């Protein structure tokens, strides 16, 4: 291939027609509260893992609905399941439980389960 000295970056635009939200849909079945997040960011602000890993429940929930699965998995791996985020969520979402359910759906073992 001819080298022109520059490359094209892939578009970062999200095409909602094509996004696969099946993981989010399954999460909603297990955790109906996943739908009522208002994106306030309290969870991320209080999360001890966030400054080091970028973990954010807000971004996890949004990412699942925007097809950013790889990012979601990276974030989930950093969660320590401390439950601080659950204490601050103004919508009363049991975020810790939600993360656990999501790990189950994703087949990622927390608490030693696969």
């Amino acid at each position, binding site marked *: 291939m001819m080298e022109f000295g520059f490359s094209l970056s892939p578009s970062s635009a999200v*095409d909602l027609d094509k996004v696969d939200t099946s993981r989010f849909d399954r999460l909603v079945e297990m955790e109906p509260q996943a739908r009522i997040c208002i994106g306030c960011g309290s969870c991320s602000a209080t999360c001890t893992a966030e400054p080091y890993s970028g973990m954010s429940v807000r971004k996890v929930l949004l990412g699942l609905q925007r097809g*950013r699965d790889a990012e979601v998995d990276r974030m989930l791996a950093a969660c320590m399941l401390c439950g601080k985020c659950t204490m601050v969520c103004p919508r009363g979402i049991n975020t810790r439980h939600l993360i656990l359910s999501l790990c189950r759906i994703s087949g990622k073992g927390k608490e030693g389960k696969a």
Partner: protein
Amino acid sequence: MKKNKNNANQHVAIIGGGIAGLEAARALLGLGYRPVIIEKSDRTGGHVADWHRLFPDMSPAKDIVERLRRETEGARTLLQTEIYAAGRLGNDYTLTLSDGNTLRAGAVLFSTGFDLFEAAKKEEYGYGIYDQVMTNADLERWFNGGGDKRLDGKEIRRIGFVHCVGSRDVKAGNAQCSKVCCITAIKQAIEMKEKFPDAEIWCFYMDLRLFGKKYEDFYIGAQRDYGIHFIRGRVSEVSENIEGRVIVKAEDTLAGKPVKVSLDVLVLMSGMVCNRQVHGLACQLSLGVDEDGFLKSRDNIASITESDNRGIFYAGAVTGPKTVPETLAEARSAALSIHAYLSAQ
């Protein structure tokens, strides 16, 4: 309160027969006055007569309009009538009407309401250009049984709502928030989900302003029970694709990514803007007009229903975007202020 005995024949001119004018007329009749409602269109009820169900209780709009019409049968109502000229004569006001008559009144109430923003002015949203784009008012008419080719017989799978159309938009000449359209969008999104249970629905908003009683419950319900998606970002442009859908582009500002989605129907939340047609009349009576074009109250805290001029009062959306309960409360409040004013004459 004691009924007005001495001035039972004193006329109060009510300009505009929307719910503000009707509710004020009802209260004034109860106080022993003779209100005269001057309405430019061929029916009373104003905008609410076009709506289907009202937030926050989903009560039929028809119920309140019909009740008010019934309860104001004792008032003189002049339909298809406008005011050509207005002036002061001693303590009274004289109004020259389009039917050739002159009306003399001890007090005047402006209840001339608002105008709906003309959605076609925001050309980038494609109203009047693409067949899939409609307004909040079009949708209410459709809910009321008026046919609409944008919906009838169509397979509707994907629906979008655009908030703040012509509101919070300095370039469109309206810096103000219209206040009712966030909750109207959520209400209509829920109603559409009930009509089209398989449809996916997206609301594009800048902020969700859900200030009123039960409004936040509507929001939670829309998310939890109806699965409506909320995307924070103002729609930037709308275009049509080859399959006959409209493509909406926005930035999802919470994700920091541009998004696009194709839709079968897009509903624009046209805002409440000032009724410019009353500026001429306001000018003849030396009434103040605010920067947003709505008529100016004496002050916005204690005397919202009073003008700077003795004997001239306001009620409802004439002074700014209002909900139905706010409008009705102002109308009753204005009627009492009119009573106090005329009693002191």
